[in-house]
């Protein structure tokens, strides 16, 4: 059963002239992209930088305006909804960001960061209950509960990313868009975060849209993979690593540095 369906999605950014700021051209970041994500599975999206994969993720979350096509979540059309009507879906679709430092407010303690979505989406909870939930969430992502008082700069990159994951999990989402969640981390930490994401999927039945440029990581976590190039889908399927059909996919696979 598919949870997310993207149909002919396009995103374009206007190019404005330096004078008068008139729109003179469009950059088509995402062109006519169609795919669907099965509930409880991971769809990987790979591509070189500038291939439109991050824009695609943001378009699904209504963070950038789309110029064409549809996004359905649980069969309901969620694209081009005004923010007020989109808000109920914010609880169901969450995002984990690429830069684990930039995605956390530097002036807020971990408690404040994770408490905020709880306060917003579970207003009936009292402070003590919210505190227990924050402790639980920190435990789930492998952090210590007394790290609540700390600020983002007091953590390592991997720990910060765990805080980011805990924040996304706070609203009990069904789908998490992971926008290159490990590409800013060093290799040993990458494996820990990827394993954490997989464990969470098994335990909570989450669905992931996993965006990345590192083929090995994406292959490891994904059930299916979509290859993007210049805003289009080049190839999609379960076995693109073993059996690439397209020239671009082969080149992408060949560009992975191998230790022989």
């Amino acid at each position, binding site marked *: 059963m598919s949870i997310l369906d993207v149909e002919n999605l396009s995103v374009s950014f206007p190019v404005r002239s330096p004078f008068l700021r008139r729109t003179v051209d469009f950059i088509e970041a995402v062109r006519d992209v169609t795919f669907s994500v099965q509930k409880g599975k991971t769809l990987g999206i790979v591509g070189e930088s500038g291939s439109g994969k991050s824009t695609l993720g943001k378009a699904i979350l209504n963070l950038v305006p789309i110029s064409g096509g549809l996004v359905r979540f649980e069969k309901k059309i969620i694209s081009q909804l005004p923010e007020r009507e989109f808000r109920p879906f914010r609880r169901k679709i*969450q995002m984990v960001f690429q830069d684990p430092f930039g995605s956390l407010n530097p002036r*807020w303690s971990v*408690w404040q960061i994770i408490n905020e979505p709880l306060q917003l989406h579970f207003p009936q909870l009292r402070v*003590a209950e919210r505190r227990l939930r924050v402790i639980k969430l920190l435990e789930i992502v492998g952090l210590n*509960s007394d790290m609540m008082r700390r600020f983002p700069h007091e953590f390592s990159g991997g720990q910060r990313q765990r805080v980011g994951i805990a924040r996304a999990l706070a609203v009990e989402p069904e789908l998490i868009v992971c926008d290159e969640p490990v590409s800013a981390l060093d290799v040993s930490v990458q494996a820990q975060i990827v394993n954490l994401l997989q464990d969470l999927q098994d335990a909570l039945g989450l669905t992931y849209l996993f965006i990345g440029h590192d083929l090995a990581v994406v292959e490891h976590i994904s059930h299916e993979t979509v290859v993007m190039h210049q805003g289009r889908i080049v190839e999609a399927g379960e076995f693109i690593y073993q059996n690439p059909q397209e020239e671009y996919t082969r080149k992408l696979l060949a560009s992975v540095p191998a230790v022989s």
Partner: protein
Amino acid sequence: MATVTFEAASSSAKLQGSSLWRDAWFRLRKNVLAIVGLCTFCFITAACLIGPFFTGYSYERTELSLKASPPLDKIIERTERRRNAGPKITHLALSSLENEFLNRPAPERKSIIREIGNRRIYIEGQNSFQVSHDRHWFGTDPLGRDLLTRVLIGGRISLTVGFAATLVSTIIGVFWGSVAGFVGGKVDSLMMRFADILYALPFTVIVILLMMLFGRNFLLLFVAIGAVEWLNMSRIVRGEIISLKQREFIEAAISLGLSNRRILVRHLIPNVMSSIIIFTTLTVPNVIMLESVLSFLGLGVQPPLSSWGVLIDEGARTMDTSIWLLAFPALAFSLTLFSLNFLGDGLRDALDPKASRD
């Protein structure tokens, strides 16, 4: 297992109050310079508020014979006996007493003055001279008014104008700049063009226009100065908001479903706080000086009331003969600014969680 979770919860029970402000106060207390600044500033404010009741002089009573007497100069009481009326008492400064005895030869004059200075009563014709118990700690101005009282009274005006106008300009500036920066697009252009137009108008013209509209009023001084000073603040805040807006934690806040107002108030503005504080500490002296310009033009405080700006302005004109008239108001003014700057620096560091906690 359940008990473990429970214990963890109770040990972090004190966490609720651990806000940015409480941590900031904790860090501020460790900053010696900032605390010295805070204490100095509180002292000056308290002195200006209650000091004038205790100096023993009024800020407006003139004693023309006294002229500009230096700080702590002995004050000589001259009593003139008159036939048809009671004795007439006037005050003179010991340093200017020579003028009274110009008909005497110089050595004799010197010894008479020394005698009087040594608390002897000296009688000459109708007049008797005697050291009075009065002292003017900061000396007196050319009209014989006590400078200490005037500095304190002037401080009331300057500090009130300084803070009220800075508050007005900070509130307007932060609101205007953050909304313009956050909303962006056409709204931003419109709002900033409006600020540019105000910026292009000369300050005094705006003030005179406001005075014409609302009449001359002390309150108007705050409004007029605040209405001009917010322009810089709004530009600074707008620029910072625009650069912060692109950070991922704002995208994260949007994708968590936070309202725009909440993002602005809880995520963006606290991150601009250090710039706001620094700029505020720079605005206070600006505002105090602007007030003196207005007073000089006859649009601000009216004599005999005074302000630091006015006192400094008057003192600068007589600095070749009576430097204390410049020195004391300037000292009070710069001491205030120093303490505010140290306090501002301390606050900026204290509000930044990246500064070390110990």
